[in-house]
């Protein structure tokens, strides 16, 4: 059980393995797209882990990366199509980043490191947990960026009008990608020093 909980904290894909950082910077200006992105990655990661694990004994090792890519892109296109049909606004906001889930190193990483050598159900669970680990970081970053950058959460205004009247300003830098990089950087640093001190003691 312990190895499945790893992605949530000790072995977090973004904070510890520094995978999937690009999309973490791009889609975290607001909470809603960040959550949808996290869900999409979780679905793709879990499903492709499951399928690859199912067929792992039939995959010729020489073309395994190609087979993995095929399966991953299949699920990504599926997610993209469903988003366009049902959550049009969100899919517009996420634009190219849904398609770019294909290149998210977390997914290929889990396929190589886990699905190819484990049974389908554990692989499914591993995919879900890694997706959640990735999603957690996205949500935290998006929470601060939306709160400080736009004064809203989930598109609802939380900073009262009286503050604006008193001269409070939204931090425009928060909306831009550089600030996301700084936030993620701070989180990686905090996580790193935390892990370091626990491993010493």
């Amino acid at each position: 059980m312990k190895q499945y909980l790893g992605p949530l904290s000790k072995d977090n894909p973004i904070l510890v393995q520094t995978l999937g950082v690009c999309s973490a910077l791009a889609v975290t200006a607001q909470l809603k797209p960040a959550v949808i992105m996290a869900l999409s990655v979780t679905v793709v990661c879990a499903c492709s882990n499951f399928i690859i694990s199912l067929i792992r004994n039939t995959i010729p090792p020489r073309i395994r990366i190609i087979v993995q890519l095929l399966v991953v892109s299949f699920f990504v296109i599926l997610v993209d199509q469903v988003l366009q049909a049902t959550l049009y606004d969100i899919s517009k906001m996420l634009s190219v980043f849904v398609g770019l889930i294909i290149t998210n190193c977390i997914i290929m990483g889990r396929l190589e490191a886990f699905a190819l050598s484990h049974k389908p159900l554990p692989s499914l669970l591993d995919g879900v947990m890694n997706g959640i680990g990735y999603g957690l970081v996205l949500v935290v970053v998006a929470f601060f960026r939306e709160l400080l950058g736009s004064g809203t959460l989930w598109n609802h205004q939380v900073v009262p009008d009286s503050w604006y009247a008193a001269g409070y300003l939204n931090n425009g830098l928060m909306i831009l990608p550089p600030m996301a990089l700084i936030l993620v950087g701070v989180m990686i640093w905090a996580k790193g020093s935390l892990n370091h001190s626990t491993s010493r003691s």
Partner: protein
Amino acid sequence: MKKFSNTYIFIYITVLVLVIAVVLTLVTTGLKPRRDFNKQAEKCQQILQAAGYNGLDRQKSVELFAKVAEKTSTDSIEQYKIVCSDGTTGKAVRLDGKGLWGAIWGYVVISEDGTTIKGITLDHKSETPGLGAKITDETFLNAFKGKKLYDKDGKFVSVRVLKPGTSAEISAENRVDAISGATITSRGVDEMMRTLSH
């Protein structure tokens, strides 16, 4: 490790690709009507917003659009005759241009005599959030309302998007302020507006 023959690999990958292609084709075709509806509904929403109808969701937009608008497009320009929210008739014209990172487009509703802007909506593919993406902000769009396309001598100048304090020869009713920090996107909107001459 098991050995796989070349024939096996060849057949394996062919079958896999075929299966995936067939499933994806089915899904894409199945969802196409809903995707098309979303695109169409968004267009209706944008045109209606330019005509002064605010706060409509997509479903209502499509219904209202069918009532108040009528397509009058020619081959080269997409345009509609539309009854605005204040009861007057205007014409909605599609605009296309380029911003800093990609396409920008929008709809402008002009009064029946073709001189005054009644409203405008703009959209973009990938302008910078907080800078170029501000062209979709209400404050920027509202600045266009009531502006004139012709100057006092009746010459076409369009509504220029210019930095405050530059090109003093263009009077206030023919210009709106550009967005600071978004020079290229503003210029894109400016050029798009100038295509209204025809």
